[in-house]
């Protein structure tokens, strides 16, 4: 099985990080994975995205153009990528920044008030983790415990004191999926 994901949002929303956690979590589960960032002469405040592939087979293209899953942290990202998601795929979007999103036939769509939930936890920087938690709950692409383990590898040691907060945000997101 091969599962392809795009994580997208404004620069600074931490979309590269949640992509890395998905890839690292997949690796910890023994899968083949790739993570590829959009890069180039991008402006501060512009959109950023990364492609993640998690597979039982050797990964072919690291650039995802028809994802199985999309995490969209802002409006422009949802608009840009929603039509590319494969039939039967899943979209988690940040309802704090996207007021209304039209239904996409054949797709599972989950609005997540990421910023509000993050603020309730006392740090709006973990909005990305709320969205990731919801995405993991919706798609089961990796387990929560793999994502938590991945945090220890991906976050630099000086940020490890923030791991409990990040885990709380992941759990809040996951709890949105019944």
């Amino acid at each position, binding site marked *: 099985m091969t599962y392809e994901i795009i994580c997208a949002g404004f620069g600074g929303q931490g979309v590269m990080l949640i992509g890395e956690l998905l890839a690292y979590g997949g690796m910890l589960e023994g899968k083949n994975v790739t993570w590829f960032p959009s890069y180039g*002469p991008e402006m501060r405040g512009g959109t950023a995205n990364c492609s993640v592939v998690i597979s039982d087979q050797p990964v072919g293209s690291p650039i995802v153009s028809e994802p199985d899953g999309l995490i969209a942290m802002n409006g422009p990202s949802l608009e840009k990528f929603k039509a590319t998601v494969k039939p039967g795929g899943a979209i988690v979007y940040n309802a704090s920044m996207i007021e209304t999103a039209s239904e996409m036939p054949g797709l599972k769509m989950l609005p997540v008030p990421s910023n509000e939930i993050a603020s309730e936890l006392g740090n709006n920087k973990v909005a990305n983790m709320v969205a990731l938690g919801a995405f993991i709950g919706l798609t089961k692409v990796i387990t929560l415990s793999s994502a938590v383990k991945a945090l220890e590898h991906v976050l630099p040691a000086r940020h490890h004191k923030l791991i409990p907060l990040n885990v709380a945000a992941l759990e809040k997101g996951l709890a949105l999926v019944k």
Partner: protein
Amino acid sequence: MERVMMKGNEALAEGAIRAGCRFFFGYPITPQNEIPEYMARRMPEVNGVFLQAESEVSAINMIYGAGGAGGRALTSSSSPGISLKQEGISYLAGAQVPCVIVNVARGGPGLGGLGPSQSDYFQATKGGGHGDYHLIVYAPGTAQEMVDLIGLAFDKAEEYRNPVMILSDAIMGQMMEPVVLPEMREVTADQPWATTGKKGRAKPNVINSLGIVGEDLERINIELQEKYKKIVDNEIRYEADGIDDADLIVVAYGTTSRVARSALNMLRAEGKKVGLLRPITLWPFPKPILSELAAEGKRFLVVEMSVGQLVEDVILAVNDRAKVDFFGKLNGSVPTVREVYNEINALLQKGGA
């Protein structure tokens, strides 16, 4: 073995250090900057030298010095910077100085753009600088191969006293993948030919690319050609996937081989007989296997991020015995899986005509 996630550029840099590289000289340019950045941090930890030169020209000539003294020396750059290094590369080839040069290629000509490209294939494999010379050219297809091939590159550079190039691109360099790193290797700079002082020797070791007296130059060139023949006979590497029963074989390296593999997986799941031939050495080129496959009646599609450079070597190898089609992308853009899938399907429907 523990797997760690690394960017291709960083995997290559750590692989070089573990293969005994202790000299890095370079000058910044996107999209290879992770290599000097990594080296700047890592080299002092292993008592190595990291030096940001004042230019690419300076960096390649520092390589001449360090490589000539028997050290494992590395420089990296991206396309416009590699063009600046060409004079030095020709001298390194002429003087038979072992070293490794990395090109994390971007789109050209000129300053071009930051997007990935494979349009430096001719430059890498057909000379690039002046004179009748060849580099050994490796094209990694995964982050793991970045590690493995840079180690091999240093070994082969020393074995043949020849510069080796790693031809990567922006995607291979920026992509993160799990890698297993090898143990740190101890290597010696103590080569019998190295210019490390006369010591007990009767004659000094001289490293030079000048052949101006009498028939010196002819002799030098004959020696070089004999060496290149040995490399062609012994060093060809490629990966073949699903070629035995294939009617159509895609030929691609690096990034485009990854895209092609995804498209081929989709087609095989539909029962189509398609395969992949991925050159790992671009020089020496895997000509014998292509020649064999052509004789068996296979047809080929070459997929490149260029207007068609690798395709010329495929056509030469096939030598009119098989049909060779081409699909290329320009301007630093990457073909999508869907585009390659559609291209192959269209060719299969057209049949062998």
